């Protein structure tokens, strides 16, 4: 019976090609618009480190105080040098690191090569184990380089390819801004999307970094931040004046593997804040906050509002297309009321009518899905026009998106067909036979 119904369905679809084409086009466009914007949304809203995102935390401290005309709960999104160093020294978490972006110039070995711009992070050795950074050669620098301001550097596969042709370069020396650094490790391609540990600077979807160097060394060499530096007031001139100012520019991350550790850290932060008031540094008790990765990405509005708004509008578009399909299917099915009457009179049950018409709708959905797939492909090419290049690059077709596109098209069409099919199955055979 299945094959027969399919044949009947196809014949019926061919009988009004314009109506059928209209349904297929409506479903195709609706599905394609939704899938394209969904692909972008999926790309930017993913969890960058799913196996550990509930164990990595960002502490915030209100080092600016209530007098700056800000709302309650609106804490600075980075730490001042004073606070970051106090937290590092206390060492209350399982692992912790302070991070800031640096932009240096790199002089490649050889006389003729032009200097290149290199972007990296100043950080502590815990960074690599906290974030499960995969190494191709060597490893991160020893703790002694953190405390002793060592000249170690970890470079990325990309930079290793450029400087050393991809060979094992551990122990070799590179020159950044006129200072020599010894390579302690080369990391494999690793660029979490979004780059959760540095979302306060830029969109979080930029290209990979080139190198990582000890934080203490960068401070020693007076390398300023390559990212945002937000100050309320600057008390004194010079490098030390800046370090001890209220300027916030350091990202801080701590790994807390258990609920008990989280509680302990939260209490520590509150205690630290209270102590700062007692010691006279602040004349208010600074509010503190501890956020894990998803909370932090949410707080920092990492998903661009454009992606949400466009996904919503596209979903609304799909709904209109479905309402349209309901109407057209209704017209199509009811036109065949006499035929249904005859089939019912000859003994076909309602169930059979349901089967026949839902199958016909599924065929429409399937063709609509295929069209939707083609249009989604076109949409993917077009996302570069609509979203930031860094974000658009992330959206791509893969098997799950292909399956989802076809599935959404078929399921949506079947849902749209429910009411028209019910009407078709409720046709009174006697009434139809009589009126003819």
């Amino acid at each position: 019976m299945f094959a027969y119904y399919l044949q009947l369905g196809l014949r019926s679809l061919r009988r009004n090609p314009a109506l059928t084409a209209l349904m297929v086009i409506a479903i195709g466009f609706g599905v394609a618009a939704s899938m394209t914007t969904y692909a972008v949304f999926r790309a930017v809203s993913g969890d960058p480190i799913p196996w550990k995102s509930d164990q990595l935390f960002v502490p915030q401290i209100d080092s600016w105080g209530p007098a700056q005309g800000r709302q309650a709960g609106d804490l600075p999104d980075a730490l001042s040098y004073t606070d970051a160093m106090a937290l590092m020294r206390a060492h209350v978490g399982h692992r912790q690191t302070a991070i800031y972006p640096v932009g240096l110039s790199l002089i490649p070995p050889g006389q003729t090569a032009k200097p290149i711009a290199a972007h990296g992070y100043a950080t502590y050795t815990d960074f690599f184990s906290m974030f499960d950074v995969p190494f191709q050669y060597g490893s991160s620098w020893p703790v002694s380089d953190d405390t002793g301001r060592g000249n170690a550097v970890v470079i990325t596969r990309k930079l290793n390819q450029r400087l050393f042709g991809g060979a094992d370069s551990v122990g070799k020396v590179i020159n950044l801004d006129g200072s020599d650094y010894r390579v302690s490790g080369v990391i494999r391609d690793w660029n979490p999307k979004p780059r959760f540990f540095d979302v306060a600077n830029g969109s979080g979807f930029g290209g990979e970094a080139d190198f990582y160097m000890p934080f203490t060394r960068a401070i020693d060499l007076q390398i300023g931040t390559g990212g945002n530096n937000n100050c309320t007031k600057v008390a004194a001139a010079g490098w030390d004046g800046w370090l001890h100012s209220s300027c916030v520019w350091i990202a801080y991350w701590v790994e807390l593997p258990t609920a008990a550790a989280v509680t302990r850290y939260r209490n520590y932060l509150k205690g630290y804040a209270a102590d700062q008031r007692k010691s006279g540094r602040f004349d208010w008790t600074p509010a503190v906050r501890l956020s894990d990765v998803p909370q932090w990405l949410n707080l920092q509005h990492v998903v661009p509002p454009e992606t949400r708004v466009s996904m919503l509008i596209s979903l609304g578009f799909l709904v209109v297309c479905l309402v349209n399909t309901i109407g057209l299917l209704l017209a199509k099915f009811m036109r065949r009321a006499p035929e249904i009457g005859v089939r019912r009179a000859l003994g076909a049950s309602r169930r059979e009518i349901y089967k026949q018409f839902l199958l016909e709708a599924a065929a429409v959905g399937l063709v609509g899905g295929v069209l939707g797939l083609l249009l989604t492909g076109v949409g993917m090419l077009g996302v570069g026009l609509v979203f930031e290049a860094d974000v658009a690059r992330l959206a791509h077709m893969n098997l799950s998106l292909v399956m989802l596109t076809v599935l959404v098209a078929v399921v949506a069409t079947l849902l749209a067909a429910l009411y028209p099919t019910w009407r078709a199955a409720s046709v009174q055979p006697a009434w139809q036979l009589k009126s003819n």
Partner: protein
Amino acid sequence: MQIKPILTALRHHKAGTVLIAVQIALTLAIVCNALFIIHQRVTQLSQPSGLDEAHLIRIQNQWVGKADDKAYGSLMATDLATLRKLPGVADAYATNSVPLSGGGWSMSLRLKADQSAPSAQTAIYFSDDHTLSTLGLKLVAGRNFRADDIRPMSAKEDLLHPAVIIVTRALADKLFPTSRAVGQTVYLANHLSTIIGVVERMQTPWVGMSWGSAASTLVPFRLLTGGTNYVIRTQPGQPDRVRRSAPDALFAQNRMRVIPDQHGVETFRQIRADAYASDRGMAILMGVICVVLLAITAAGIVGLTSFWVGQRRKQIGVRRALGATRGDILSYFLTENLLIGMGGVLLGIALAIGLNLWMVTRFEMQHLSLWYVLAGAVALLLLGQGAVLAPALRASRVSPVEATRSV
């Protein structure tokens, strides 16, 4: 035209009527909001920057190796002399940032030293006596910087305390709404500065900042850091040539520098395109969705009405046989569509406003102007009339003979 018989007839097609009305309502809600988003984005991206954009080029320069901050001053002076001598170059200067570039300094301004809340927030542009002529800014009051106003400033050792500043008119009006700004003093951070000039307009480096897009301040400092921006104004017709020759001339003069491959040398057109990429993209996306949506809604109306006409051929034949003219039949279907359309539009207005209110709370959107809703409603009614025209004309051509046929 009698409406009562139409309403009675519609009662027999409840499902179809409701479906068309709902489709019109949803379309209206989406199209109104989409058009409103387009309007907002286009307003945003068509704001003038105040600059002579067609002739400007920006070069991002980073010095290599460790140098004393003081040394950067002479390196920059040599570079500027090289650039200004280059054929096709009208003028050049060095700065920390340019409008729309996305990164820069901002500070707050106070009228009194002990004021707790700042009077205004402003972007800070490091400038010299060549800035106005390079960018093509229009001085509307006061004077430009003189060469002896310009001081070097080390980012690591000095604090920003300019004796004189130039502000934009937007900022001047905000600080001194009733009096002349030139000659007045303001506190920039903790130091007193005198306003010596007002320029007509200069946008900040950031797009969509809450404190205004044109509140900018020019300070007479040469910022001594390892990285700087050179801004070049070319002579007419020369941007492409200077774009290639300027970096070459800089490297020939001193090799120990980095000009990034990406965004290292850009025309102001590119900077503008990057700054508004997401605004333009949203406008295009919303435009495409509107067009396709309207097309699908119109096609849906054509489809369903054609079906109704097909269903009612016999009744139409009877009416024609009883003396109804073609015009009567045509206006019957047009009126029917208008009634359904009005029902849909009423529902749609409520939906459009509801959707907008929800987006206001959720996505920091602005309130929808009622004109959009009204214009959208009229447009959809016209769309419905246009869509129904073809099937209605076909109905009007049904011959009275149909009344006598049995099927």
